[in-house]
């Protein structure tokens, strides 16, 4: 159990810059999920923490000690790999005991610790087997056991669930979360799966092209994504983005697709006519005609059972995905939809989130001017 701190981590392979300065502070016992599309540098970051790669710049601090120059074995960490990386010629027991043996622990203690960990994971009766005699889920447990038995300061998970089938993945996801809570070990978990990220993490790091776009709790990220990348990455199906401009002194957005929508949360900063990107999640769009509604020309309906996904195009040519539970229009028909103002996310032309200027702040500012 320990804290982890990353300070200005940069990494370049030759002239290719993979990480552009990552800062992160992880509290004791916290589960941080690093999520991003493939090639965003998330695995490289994890490997730098593990000591399998060296950072070009920056420092890695575990439990207050600078470990940037230390070998993996001297960092007191354990890692679970995507393909499990079990030693194929060793039994489950030997796989789990190997790290302890190298550290020179007495045999009796090794036996006790391995047995205890194996029982915790429900693989106590498999200790004599070889990895190839195990199912995917069991191998996964052994890989976890090998990490847990070491009682490290830090757990590192490199996409450990991607090789499992869908059902097992959900099951192991819950199990990992329960275990991590119970053991209270500080953990870094890398994944490209946003559902995994949302369900597992105390906080998420959303990475994109070597930068941490946002570090926050899952719900914060979902409710207030810092930019269009994060907004589009978290949530399935992805958020819709529509071009718009700021009108009525910052109080409303005029969509390129037609309607003008007054913001629910007040005035947004920016000049009159400033270009905006308005985001709305598919599940927040409602069917309905009347003022402010947009005609959606439906081109594909995907029924999901309880709900349907409706893909269509607006008069501006922009595409829109809608998730609705009580409506399944025919392809080719026109469905009038309404974008509820309270569910809008407003971004500037560069994709950065714009928050409304709160009324209280405005009056305070006005008061200051008045005084």
């Amino acid at each position, binding site marked *: 159990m320990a804290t982890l701190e990353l300070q200005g981590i940069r990494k370049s392979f030759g002239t290719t810059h993979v990480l552009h300065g990552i800062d992160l502070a992880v509290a004791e016992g916290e589960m941080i999920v690093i999520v991003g599309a493939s090639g965003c540098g998330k695995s490289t970051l994890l490997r730098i923490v*593990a*000591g*399998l790669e060296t950072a070009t710049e920056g420092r890695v601090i575990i439990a207050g000690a600078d470990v940037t120059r230390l*070998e*993996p*074995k001297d960092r007191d*960490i*354990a*890692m679970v*790999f*995507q*393909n*499990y*990386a*079990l*030693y*194929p*010629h060793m039994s489950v027991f030997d796989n789990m005991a*190997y*790290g302890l043996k*190298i*550290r020179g622990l007495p045999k009796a203690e090794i036996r006790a610790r391995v047995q205890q960990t194996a029982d915790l994971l429900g693989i106590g009766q498999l200790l004599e087997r070889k990895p*190839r005699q195990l199912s995917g889920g069991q191998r996964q447990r052994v890989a976890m056991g*090998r990490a847990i038995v070491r009682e490290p300061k830090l757990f590192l998970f490199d996409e450990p669930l991607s090789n499992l089938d869908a059902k097992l993945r959900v099951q192991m996801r819950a199990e990992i979360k329960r275990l991590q809570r119970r053991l209270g070990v500080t953990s870094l978990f890398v994944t490209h799966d946003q559902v995994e990220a949302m369900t597992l993490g105390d906080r998420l790091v959303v990475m994109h092209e070597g930068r941490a776009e946002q570090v926050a709790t899952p719900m914060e990220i979902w409710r207030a994504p810092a930019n269009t990348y994060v907004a589009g990455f978290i949530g399935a199906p992805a958020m819709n983005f529509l071009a718009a401009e700021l009108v009525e002194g910052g109080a409303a957005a005029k969509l390129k697709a037609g309607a003008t929508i007054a913001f629910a949360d007040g005035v947004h900063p920016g000049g009159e006519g400033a270009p905006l990107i308005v985001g709305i999640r598919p599940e927040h769009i409602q069917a309905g005609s009347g003022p402010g509604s947009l005609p959606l020309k439906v081109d594909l309906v995907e029924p999901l059972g309880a709900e349907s996904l409706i893909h269509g195009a607006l008069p501006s040519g922009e595409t829109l995905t809608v998730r609705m539970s009580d409506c399944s229009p025919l392809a080719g028909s026109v469905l009038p939809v309404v974008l509820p103002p309270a569910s809008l996310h407003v971004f500037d032309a560069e994709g950065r989130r714009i928050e409304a200027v709160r009324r209280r702040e405005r009056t305070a500012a006005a008061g200051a001017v008045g005084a």
Partner: protein
Amino acid sequence: MMHGPIDATRLAAAERAAMKAEAARRRTDIVTHAILILGVVLFALPIWIVLMGSTHDVGTIARGEVPLLPGPYAVQNYLTALGEGSARTTRVPVALMMVNSFIMALLITVGKIAISLTSAYAVVFFSFPGRMVAFWSIFITLMLPVEVRIFPTFKVVSDLGMINTYGGLIIPLIASATATLLFRQFFLTIPDELVEAAKIDGAGPLRFFKDVVLPLSVTNIAALFVILFVYGWNQYLWPLLVTTSGDVETIVIGIVRMIGSEADTDWNLVMATAVLALLPPVAVVILMQRWFVKGLVETEK
């Protein structure tokens, strides 16, 4: 009513066709077996003749007879060969030659495997300056036949005073580009994650070699052992150059030295020696085959 006879003719036709097919199949069987038997006879006959020849007295073969049935002198011939040797090899006993051959073949095999394992390990798992130069220089020697470098090698060995020693016999044959290449290819299939898992577990390079790489290579080592042992045992040209005395003479050279002009060759002893020369490689193949089949079954991923 109408289809009764038609059915009957159809049935008869089908039966005839089936019988024809059956006959054709039997003919193919006979032909393939005949070819196989011919092949076996072709390959086995010389060995049979040697085996039978080693059970007759000197005179039988000297008279030009080719014995196809066992004679009464088996025990005597083998005892003479093993214990006393032939007059033409200044009576070096074949038992000594076999020991020499065995030491040479075993040390060449062990040496080759040890050297190529470690050099492949270095080339695959470490990055150091000149790594590719090292690999390519090993690789290029693969293209050169032994005969090309045999005279420079002989010069070096004789200057070092290693003629007629085990060292001179064995050391020049130990470097093996082929085995290094084979192990390199195998090591490349070991996933990086395994190396990293070992690093995190705290295993240093030697520990990783001993605990992970070596056990995973067992199958390859067994296969190479068989091939290299036979290679070492059958060495002819190099031992011929560096051995001039009986002390380090190998069995292959011994056979050559036993055969002089037709008249004064102890053919019965030559035959017995040839049979004895066959045995160790055969034994190694049989023993190791069982072992590496087991290895194949156990370490399969």
